[in-house]
């Protein structure tokens, strides 16, 4: 009954009274009580705003009459929104009714208690394999509304998108071949869909492919899980979107990936007569050679592989500005003999151009030093 006169006060008026309360305190002792009353009421308002929103029922809950709450008053969100199998997922609970920061929150996975505590509004867990259903439950133990529960059933399905470029990397290279301008890229969708406890074959899924904003009707369709396209210009990103759906539409996931376009480049390696090409160590800028001859092997990283195979790329070797004759059967290599006497250096340059594509060009310079005097 004490609070009833204040139940209908609007918030702005309360704030005004509260702000002026300090000045009353200094002059009038009676006003002190009023001020304390105001402070107490404001405090209650902050704690239980719903008391004023819902009127009397809220006040009654404060007096210990627990209300039956429905789970519609809280929401449960997941990140990522559609978690795949074996994925780390963060669940977050929020409520417009209860203050989740001051409420005891209990998290359950498949009925087993996993986390509890005041303000534990975030909970991270891991999904199982495809088809392994997870029932995520959260319980809020509020003073005002009693126990509130929310439940979510998660059935992990996933769509991974991988890609590979048809560009050159040397044999034994452990890294990824990167796309250069106007090279071919193949994007592969790898769905893991479970429908009625059965894993759906990737070839039985319907795919819709888009490059940028444009759908590719020829590349899309039933079982079309790979999409091939030509890249754009260097340094830009090609944006590829794929939507994968089951035939009956019960499961559908869309993914968008950016594919960056890189510059091709040349790296020199020493081809040792006995040891083979030393791909472990590139020759950078300046190289001093001691043997009577040096065979340089050029690796045209990220040039279109099919064009290199079809001999549509030119290799022009220059030494101190003069173009060199090279073995047409092995144009990526050049052998340099060391003068028998003295010391000196050569400026070696290689230009590689893919005739088919203007932007697939690269140059590389290296200074080769020999010194017979210190041997």
């Amino acid at each position, binding site marked *: 009954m004490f609070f009833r006169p204040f139940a209908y006060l609007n918030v702005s008026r309360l704030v005004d009274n509260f702000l002026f309360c300090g000045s009353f305190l200094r002059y009038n002792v009676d006003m002190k009580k009023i001020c304390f009353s105001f402070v107490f009421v404001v405090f209650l308002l902050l704690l239980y705003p719903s008391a004023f929103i819902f009127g009397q029922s809220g006040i009654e809950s404060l007096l210990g009459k627990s209300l039956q709450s429905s789970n519609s008053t809280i929401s449960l969100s997941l990140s990522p929104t559609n978690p795949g199998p074996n994925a780390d997922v963060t669940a977050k609970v929020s409520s417009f009714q209860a203050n989740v920061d001051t409420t005891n929150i209990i998290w359950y996975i498949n009925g087993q208690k996993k986390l509890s505590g005041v303000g534990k509004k975030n909970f991270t867990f891991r999904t199982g394999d495809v088809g392994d259903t997870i029932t995520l439950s959260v319980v809020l133990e509020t003073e005002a509304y009693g126990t509130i529960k929310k439940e979510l059933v998660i059935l992990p399905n996933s769509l991974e998108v*991988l890609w590979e470029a048809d560009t050159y990397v040397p044999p034994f290279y452990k890294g990824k071949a990167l796309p250069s301008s106007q090279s071919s890229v193949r994007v592969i969708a790898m769905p893991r869909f479970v429908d009625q406890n059965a894993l759906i074959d990737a070839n039985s899924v319907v795919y819709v492919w888009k490059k940028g904003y444009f759908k590719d009707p020829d590349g899309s369709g039933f079982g079309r899980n790979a999409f091939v396209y030509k890249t754009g210009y260097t340094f830009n990103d090609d944006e590829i979107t794929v939507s994968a759906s089951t035939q009956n539409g019960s499961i559908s996931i869309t993914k968008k990936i950016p594919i*960056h376009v890189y510059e091709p480049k040349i790296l020199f390696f020493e081809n040792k007569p006995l040891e083979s090409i030393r791909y472990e160590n*590139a020759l950078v800028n300046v190289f001093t050679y001691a043997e009577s001859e040096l065979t340089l092997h050029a690796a045209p990283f990220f040039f279109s592989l099919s064009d290199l195979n079809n001999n549509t790329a030119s290799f022009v070797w220059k030494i101190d500005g003069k173009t060199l004759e090279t073995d047409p059967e092995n144009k990526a290599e050049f052998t340099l003999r060391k003068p028998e006497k003295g010391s000196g250096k050569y400026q070696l340059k290689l230009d590689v151009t893919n005739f088919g594509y203007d932007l697939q060009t690269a140059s590389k310079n290296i200074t080769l030093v020999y010194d017979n005097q210190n041997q």
Partner: protein
Amino acid sequence: MTKKQLYITVGIIAVVALGFLLASYLISRRAAESGVETTNPFANFFPFGKSEKIKTTDLGNTDNETAGEGTENINTEGGGGGFLVLRTVSQKPVAGLFSYIRSGKTYVEYIEKETGNVYEMKMEDMRPSRLSNSLITRVSEAYFGNDGGMVVLRYLKPKSDAITTFILDLSKITRGTLPEDNATTTASDNSPLPNGKFLASGIRDVKVSEDTKGLFYLTRTGDFTDRLSVGSVFDFQKNTSSDVFLSPFSEWLPVYFDGHTAILQTKASRNVPGFLYSFNIKTGDLQKIIGDISGLTALPSHDNQKIVYSESTRNGVTLHIYDRKDSSTKDFFLQTLPEKCVWKKDNASLYCAVPSSFPSGEYPDSWYQGISSFSDNIWEINAITGKTTSVFVPGSLTMKLLDMTNLTLSPSEDFLFFINKRDSSLWAFDLAGGWEE
């Protein structure tokens, strides 16, 4: 205290101090003369001294040494045959290695790149023994299988990027017959050539199984538009291959194989999200383990329960260990690539070669491409507790810069072998504790 007592006290202190100084000097000098590495026990006694390993022998390579003779003789001069904790096993380029125990002694077997010859070395006496005659030259990669009874040799065809894969049968070669007076060769020039067989041409990547009985390898079929990756298993004992894996994506790198499960990593580049999948050979199921990690490279433990992996950052990489049992991840301050690590048998800890710094570049690309080289120190990482311990700093033992790859532990984990990527030389570090008499 009388003046006499004071003089006696000062005198005793002075004599003791001089004694320590003299002993310290003599120990240092003896170590320097004998060519062994040791720690001066008195160095920390005085405030002006600092304990440090005394480096007296440079194990730097010379280009002109021949196979066998290329092994650094690091016997101490009159020192009782002690060896440095860090030893050069082969200065000649090595394509692959395998360690085993025979009669309670640790051995290492390795393939010389230039000749394709198989060498064996008993770590106790550090004398190499050639076990086979030259059959295949210019070998780029070698992987031992079937407990050392077979070796997979991978090399390029002349003037070509095509990789040839040859299985060399070593089961009939004679081991452990190193004569006392011959430190280099046991195989005679008239010895029959070992048997072998070619695997399919164009094998892109291979992985020997944990029990060394099988080999998982990947080939490609079709042109780029319709390309398929085919995974096959070669059984070293049955001498047969069977196809087990088919995928429209072909840039896989097998990083683990135990006969039943292959762990496949997408080939890494700094700015490209990487994924790690587990492929069950029996069910044909391909499941993601971790993914969406920039520049991901990974190395599973022997029991396939923990995975050490790296993630590319602007300044290099970060190192993590993922536990498959509870899906937890531990982050480590050490910066290195899993290719520079080896798991111990307990699957709880691992040794990693950790670069002292990352030169500017994009990793792992710059390292794979040979643009950047590292100078590594060895650390031990406990995957359970997260504790990291510095094991040794090669800079205190050799002037050589060591960019370590192919880290391999001996079966009793008393030696850590590695290949220096800078020149493909083979090294051994004595984990059992320094040098022996």
